[in-house]
């Protein structure tokens, strides 16, 4: 329910063009931000990235002043939507989001894919990190083409490793009763 409300609220913010509406719609995000001040840090990072977007819009818009205003409105909307979703994600946690996906009738295959991808990221991250550290130690400086070629080879190697790992994982899942277990989450 809370996720559905957040989506509808974010959609309303996303489609608002007038400043008056945006001010009214800011009330809820401000309350969320007061209750979760931890989000402020990531908001600063988000807006630092957004400065580039405002500058691009200002320089490419037919009128410089209008471009800046448009950039600021988009930034405002972006901040409000970010606060809403960050609040919801913090409130629900991963299991809550998964339960919401079940209630939204998201296909089982997609849900399993999401869970296994998250698990896969943790598994493969260690392998990729080791490969990158080894590369740094063996060749700290490389020409551009060599660097790109090495990146390609490391990626290819990680793909092969993940394929062989997936075979073992599938066998393990089958031994534990197949994909039925995922429905009990």
């Amino acid at each position, binding site marked *: 329910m809370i996720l559905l409300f957040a*989506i509808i609220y*974010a*959609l309303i913010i*996303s*489609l608002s063009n007038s400043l008056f509406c945006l001010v009214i719609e800011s009330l809820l995000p401000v309350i969320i931000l007061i209750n979760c001040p931890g989000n402020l840090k990531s908001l600063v990072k*988000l807006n630092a990235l*957004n400065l580039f*977007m405002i500058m*691009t819009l200002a320089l*490419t*818009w*037919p009128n410089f002043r*209008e*471009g800046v205003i*448009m950039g600021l*409105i*988009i*930034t405002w*909307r*972006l901040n*409000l*939507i*970010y606060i809403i*979703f960050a609040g919801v994600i913090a409130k629900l946690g991963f299991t809550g989001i998964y339960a919401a996906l079940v209630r939204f009738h998201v*296909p089982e*295959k*997609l849900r*399993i*894919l*999401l*869970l*296994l*991808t*998250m*698990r*896969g*990221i943790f*598994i*493969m991250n260690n392998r*990729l990190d080791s490969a990158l550290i080894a590369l740094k130690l063996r060749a700290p400086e490389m020409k*551009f083409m060599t*660097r*790109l070629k090495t*990146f*390609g*080879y490391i*990626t*290819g*190697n*990680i*793909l*092969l490793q*993940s*394929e062989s*790992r*997936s075979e073992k*994982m*599938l066998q393990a*899942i089958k031994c534990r009763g197949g*994909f039925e277990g995922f429905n009990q989450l």
Partner: protein
Amino acid sequence: MHISEGILSGGVLIAGWAGTLAGVSVGLKKTNPDKIVKVALLSSAFFLASLVNVKIGPSSTHLSLLAPMGLILGWAAFPAIVVALLLQAVLFHFGGLLVLGVNAFIMGISAVSVYLLFGEKIRGTGSKIYSFIAGALAVMIAALLVGLSLGLTDGNFLTAAKLIILVHLPLSLIEGLATMFIISWLKRVSPEFLS
């Protein structure tokens, strides 16, 4: 490549979600349940590889790896991209949840397009050239679709859209080279992987 929240119009957002839903349903239908684990681990490998910084002169970039995803996963690239973008939105705040539909459609359709165009060709002779073209083309299709989404939202975005397409031209060459190296390595080390 990600479009941020709060930029696109309602119509574009709805169209993007509709396209993504269609792509995901085809992708899931074509994915055998036993292949889900393989798709998940391959997409996590792509996710991690796309976060690696590749230095270019004084700057650095992240490669999107759309073409290798499409060429290796086929239609399954669509749901894999949706999951990857969802995780990026939740974990790193790239893109967003509302624009997920549009971003996923842009990247998914680029990956699937190169699979349909070059999926068979990279298995035969001249795979290096085909994989290079596939890598560059996937990025350019994605950049064109980003530009189109912005242009359809507001006519005033057109100059910014043209700039985005222009910026992606050198990036497409780099992606083309990276795709070529990945595919040629896979073909040399494990030819059955691509079959």
